[in-house]
């Protein structure tokens, strides 16, 4: 179990379109791993393959293995629901449940999954998750407020708290700051660096500068194939592949 996530020969089709071609990746534990590439290269698809959210798309066909914490989540014995609890996801457009309050948003997952045994435990869990997401101080006096009334950056942190409340091992982030203003975005980036102490963070980004800022390891994806993987400092000073070079210096599309 050296790797947090071990993707082996993953192939994904949307209908007839071959979207991910024989992708293999190994993601070490407790670090921020970025997956970068131009639009349409398949990075969001790859992320959703890691928590079996891909199956919600009726056109998607998946072949290959994804091992998380020593378990192949695509094997027959594994329930997709377990995979989704192992690897929680934060989305590009912040999507807290609009009909629920701040408290209820964080509490819903643990309640439905039967993680806590009493209201007191639930309260503590919600507070812990909100603290960890650096949102507690801003909302502690108005937990009953509808989540839709928070600002974009706060909503995104709420979504992170919602994910943390389920105690996942991996946190998947799909372009989490793409829809946020720069100040909110940088708060999320700081949060990522904190989170990697306890979790493995996999972030998809279309912005190579962001990958350079926040990640320890980075993979460059192009047209469904992994072109280059390595330590961020190396990939950004001396990339090995000319496509990678083109992408990071901004000469690609």
């Amino acid at each position, binding site marked *: 179990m050296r790797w947090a996530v071990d993707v082996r020969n993953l192939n994904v089709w949307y209908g007839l379109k071959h979207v991910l071609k024989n992708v293999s990746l190994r993601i070490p534990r407790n670090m921020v791993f970025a997956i970068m590439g131009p639009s349409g290269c398949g990075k969001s698809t790859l992320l959703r393959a890691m928590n079996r959210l891909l199956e919600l798309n009726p056109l998607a066909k998946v072949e290959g293995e994804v091992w998380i914490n020593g378990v192949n989540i695509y094997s027959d014995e594994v329930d997709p629901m377990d995979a989704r609890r192992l690897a929680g996801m934060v989305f590009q457009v912040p999507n807290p449940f609009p009909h629920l309050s701040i408290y209820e948003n964080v509490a819903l997952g643990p309640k439905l999954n039967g993680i806590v045994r009493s209201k007191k435990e639930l309260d503590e869990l919600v507070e812990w998750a909100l603290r960890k997401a650096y949102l507690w101080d801003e909302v502690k006096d108005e937990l009953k407020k509808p989540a839709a009334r928070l600002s974009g950056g706060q909503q995104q942190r709420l979504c992170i708290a919602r994910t943390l409340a389920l105690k996942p091992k991996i946190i998947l982030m799909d372009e989490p700051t793409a829809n946020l203003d720069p100040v909110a975005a940088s708060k999320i980036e700081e949060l990522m660096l904190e989170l990697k102490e306890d979790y493995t963070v996999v972030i998809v980004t279309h912005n190579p500068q962001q990958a350079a800022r926040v990640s320890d390891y980075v993979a460059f994806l192009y047209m469904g194939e992994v072109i280059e993987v390595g330590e961020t400092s190396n990939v950004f000073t001396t990339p090995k592949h000319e496509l990678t070079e083109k992408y*990071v*210096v901004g000469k690609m599309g």
Partner: protein
Amino acid sequence: MSVRRPLDTGVERLKGIIGDMAAAAVEAFRRAMESVFTGKVALEDVRMLSEQLRFMREESGQLAIELIARFQPVATDLRRIRSCLQVSYDLSRIGRYSLDICETSILVPVMGCDFSKLRQLYIIVLYMVREVGRAFIFEDLDLAKKVRELDDDVDALYDDYLKGLLERGQKDNPPCLIAGTLVLRYLERIADHACYIADAVSYIRTGSLEIEKE
């Protein structure tokens, strides 16, 4: 189709300054050595060129920092800018050594000295400095390798001349001895800096400072 990025204008300007520095360094070196060989001293000219080099070094340093702060360059862009910073230092040193050579030719009476071996060395080093400047501007790795290889010849001639000086020591007049030794030293250092510039070309092109010897 090449995309023109905001960074590209800045880098072109930076390279332009380095190009000017390279020309000035060659000129300063040439004139300084002429002073030694012909006795016609061009101290003012060389001093002015050296000053110019110092000034351009400042300018290029500022520009490089500004480009890094504004554009967050990576990969080849980053290596190129870093190399320009390094090379501007090397070229300014060449200017400084040229000035030292010139001053030597004034302080020490050099009329009548036999500097033929020195001249041989000078020709090689001048070639190195000229060509490496071109190699850097055009990022020509082959040319850089050639310059690098000449360093061996420089070392050989250096040893040879030094031995020669020690042998002839008693027969030559002291001023020629002193002047010869000093200028030899400066030539050797100038050759070293030319090699550093060649290494920078390799760094830009391959990311590695080591030029593979063929």
